[in-house]
């Protein structure tokens, strides 16, 4: 049951690409917020979340992601998602997350657009 969640960041130009690994629940959401806050403090405004290594999410984790998207909008930035599994894409759609943020198949597509 030790599903240890990890989030790592790589900078590419003005974009911060956050790579998640593991189940996105409330604790994972808090880790993403922590990482995001550190990047905002460095004046980063544009974000891509690559969820290739995330297979499961829950509604509390997604609610936290929606709060992150709202903060990005407040600072005049952008946030996109890429590499969603079909179930995560469907979950995001049901929860209305795709109204606030764009979803791309690949990281390359997200950076291009």
């Amino acid at each position: 049951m030790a599903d240890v969640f990890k989030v790592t960041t790589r900078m590419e130009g003005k974009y911060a690409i956050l790579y998640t690994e593991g189940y996105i629940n409330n604790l994972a959401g808090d880790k993403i917020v922590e990482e995001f806050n550190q990047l905002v403090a460095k004046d980063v405004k544009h974000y891509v979340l690559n969820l290739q290594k995330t297979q499961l999410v829950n509604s509390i984790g997604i609610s936290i992601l929606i709060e992150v998207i709202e903060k990005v909008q407040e600072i005049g930035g952008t946030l996109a998602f890429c590499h969603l599994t079909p179930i995560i894409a469907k979950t995001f759609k049901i929860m209305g997350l795709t109204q606030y943020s764009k979803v791309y198949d690949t990281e390359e597509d997200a950076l291009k657009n």
Partner: protein
Amino acid sequence: MDSNEVFLQIPMLPNMELAATETAHRVAEFMQFDPDKIDEIKIAMIEGIINAFEHSQSKDKTVYIKFLMRGDELEVTIQDFGHGFDLDSAKKEPEQLRKRGHGLNLMEGLMDRVDIYATPNGTKVIMVKRRHSSDE
């Protein structure tokens, strides 16, 4: 107990919902559900279980789960013996209930049928997923 039932009880501890999704995976796989539908069952179950974790305040701090393999359908029952909740309020917007409302919407969006029975003695969520949807 019928021979087509699987029972599981999990303590209300962090990430224990994943133990239930692993069992769900095996049961649905045995019933030859396709991988996308198995994932839908798993996410819906996570929502039902974390609702119990977060809101039931049950004294035994346990969630009881039953998988019933019924022909083309998998019926999952998630039950706690907490104080129950107001279903109508949970779907409305007030901040403290918003996240629970999301979970209910998710369960309904991912399963073919969701019935919720809330009483002062606990909550029972019965979810059904069909192997073949009616439009297939």
